[in-house]
């Protein structure tokens, strides 16, 4: 291949990079293939399997390694040859919507969300609608709400919080325990869960917010784990691994969703179906998410919100202007935690059962991924990212036909992390600052112009 690739001087390299010759591309792809063989040999070559007499045997899979290397070779070859032609596609231009349309689009989206359960019913029938309302509707909206809550901390105030799920857990456990032991109704548990989570946010924030950047991230991660371990080990209070079951379900202003005489269906003269509760839960989480969104938009335009963003831009400058940075960070932490707590209370009431399993670090990572993917600080970006990530994960469950391709043992849901990985790689290439990378000013003198992400800082604690 060497003669084809030509002399390996820096100048020639630069030229071939701009207009790759076939020889250069093949050499490059061969290198990639060799790299994949090097990586795949220790990882995928040997499979352990138990034979008939229950002994462990090693089974080499040369075919798979070669297939992986060949795939990498072909993809790299295609990329090297096609990349210069796709140069213009690299940075996707920002979609600008005229102001008149922005308002209309927002209304249309809202109308679509409100009509969603009925559209699902009409299209999928009673049996199929459960999946669409519960797995897609409610599940996605929970993450939209958590994403918006975390967006206050990470996106606006620029504090990298890797333990957000702790507040979700505090909200879920406090509302479940209040409902079960004190017997409070869901409608009292919900605000109390938010308050408890906010208090925990302040409590954890006090020692943690002295730290900056990477140190803050590590300590918040540790606090998230501490909360989870306390939930596991304080068996008398939390039930340990067994969790809490039989959490009272939310009622429709006192009317339970069951087949009894005084139930929701009987009172309104409807035929009882579990769909009523699902539709109600859907509207409940939709309302909670919209409240989170409205509060965030409002707070951004208040002095406190501007101070959060100023803090993300430059903490020292903030202090020189008389802003108490500790209080400002604590409010961001507490308000973010409060919305996490609301989300947790909803989660507990929806599931009827909670255990520490639901509040692992992976959840924090998913919520953070949604915020980062959406474009830090952007409300609509976070919502789109939540739909793509959570909806995408749920869609994997639908891919049962892949079993015919890969064999009966293939479970597509095992590959959901692959989806996150692909989304992150795609983002690195096309949208390095997230889906929505522009910042909209909170106030203007003559004309609101959106600010390019190049100027906006990510914050460093």
């Amino acid at each position, binding site marked *: 291949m060497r003669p084809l690739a030509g002399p390996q001087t820096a100048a020639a390299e630069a030229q071939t990079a701009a207009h790759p010759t076939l020889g250069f591309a093949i050499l490059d792809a061969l290198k990639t293939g060799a790299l994949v063989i090097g990586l795949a040999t220790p990882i995928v070559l040997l499979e352990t399997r138990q034979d008939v007499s229950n002994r462990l045997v090693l089974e080499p899979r040369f075919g798979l390694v070669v297939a992986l290397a060949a795939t990498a070779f072909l993809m790299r070859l295609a990329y090297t040859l096609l990349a210069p032609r796709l140069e213009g596609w690299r940075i996707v231009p920002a979609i600008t919507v005229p102001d008149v349309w922005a308002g209309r689009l927002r209304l249309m989206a809202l109308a679509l969300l409100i009509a969603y359960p009925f559209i699902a019913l009409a299209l999928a029938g009673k049996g199929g609608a459960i999946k669409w309302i519960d797995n897609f509707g409610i599940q996605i909206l929970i993450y939209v709400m958590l994403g918006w809550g975390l967006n206050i901390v990470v996106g606006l105030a620029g504090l990298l919080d890797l333990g957000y799920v702790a507040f979700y857990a505090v909200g879920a456990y406090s509302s479940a325990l209040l409902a079960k032991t004190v017997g409070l109704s869901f409608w009292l548990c919900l605000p109390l869960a938010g308050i408890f989570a906010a208090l925990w946010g302040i409590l954890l924030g006090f020692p943690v917010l002295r730290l900056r950047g990477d140190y803050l991230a590590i300590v918040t991660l540790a606090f998230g784990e501490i909360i989870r371990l306390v939930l596991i080990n304080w068996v008398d209070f939390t039930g340990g691994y067994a969790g809490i079951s039989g959490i009272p379900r939310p009622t429709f202003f006192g009317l339970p969703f069951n087949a009894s005489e005084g139930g929701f269906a009987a009172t309104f003269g409807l035929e009882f179906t579990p769909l009523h509760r699902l539709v109600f839960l859907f509207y409940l989480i939709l309302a909670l998410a919209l409240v989170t969104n409205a509060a965030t938009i*409002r707070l951004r335009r208040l*002095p406190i919100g*501007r101070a959060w963003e100023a803090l993300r831009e430059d903490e020292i400058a903030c*202090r020189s*202007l008389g802003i108490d940075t500790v209080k400002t960070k604590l409010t961001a932490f507490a308000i973010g935690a409060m919305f996490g707590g609301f989300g947790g209370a909803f989660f507990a009431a929806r599931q009827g059962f909670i255990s520490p399993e639901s509040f692992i670090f992976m959840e924090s990572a998913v919520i953070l991924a949604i915020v980062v993917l959406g474009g830090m600080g952007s409300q609509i970006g976070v919502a789109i990212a939540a739909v793509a990530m959570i909806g995408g994960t749920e869609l994997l469950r639908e891919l049962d036909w892949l079993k015919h391709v890969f064999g009966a043992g293939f479970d597509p849901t095992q590959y959901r992390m692959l989806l996150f990985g692909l989304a992150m790689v795609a983002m690195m290439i096309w949208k390095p600052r997230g889906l929505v990378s522009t910042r909209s000013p909170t*106030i203007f003198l003559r004309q609101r112009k959106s600010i390019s992400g190049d100027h906006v800082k990510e914050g460093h604690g």
Partner: protein
Amino acid sequence: MAGGTAPLLAVEHLTMRFGGLLAVDDLSFNVLAGDITALIGPNGAGKTTVFNCITGFYKPTRGRLSLAHGNGATTDEIEALTRSGRRWRRDGDHALYLLERMPDFEISAKARVARTFQNIRLFTGMTVLENLIVAQHNRLMHASGYSLLGLLGIKSFRDAEAAAIEKARIWLERISLAARADDPAGDLPYGDQRRLEIARAMCTDPVLLCLDEPAAGLNPRESADLNALLRSIRLDDGTAILLIEHDMSVVMDVSDHIVVMEYGRKIADGTPEDIRNDPAVIAAYLGVEDEEESAAEAEIRAIAAHVRQEGDGP
């Protein structure tokens, strides 16, 4: 220097030690109300350290920094406050603050000392207008009922916000940046960013404005604009200015009072005329060897006298 007025800021025996390094060594000087005071000296003399002590970014190892609002404070008042162990004493318009005891944000919020930075620290991702609104944070925070009333959108908050925008607009016109109010601050050219940083500091309503090398990187025209802005701040806003500067055309042109530092110590203190003729200053700036110092001083003085004579001519 108006004689007899009590100082706005009195720096007494300020000492700052970083491990084995003595950055500021027993420095004392006064800043008078309504004056422009320049702090000059060779690189590494400890000027920025003094600034960081005054604005609370460093806690001094030793020394007292007392700032008086109103008619100034007597030595007895300062002593009494120091012994009381408190950080400040307020009594109507008359107030006294011991800056070395206060955290940085309180020095800006309560003692009303504002500052700029050697390497400009604007909120680059926020618009020019937003930068000036953030500077009025504490007043707006109060008007918004610490966000609770602001969430409800009450009228008194909207009025306060309109007043803040008006103040920002006036400052934008003074620094001739009104046309760029809605552009990100990071998009402005360097000279405009310097002026915006000064305007942002002024939006906190300071009694003392500390400028760390405001003329660094400015061309002669921008330097002249800066001089005009500094004079207007002193005259129209009544704000005293303390500035660190290397550009002697700015220092000699605008200052009422100059303090010269070398190796953390004060080597001279006086009017621009005094400083121009001070042998220690000349030696410090030209870096003369000790044994040659007196000979060089005499020579320089002769040259300076000659230059002055020429300058006085037609």
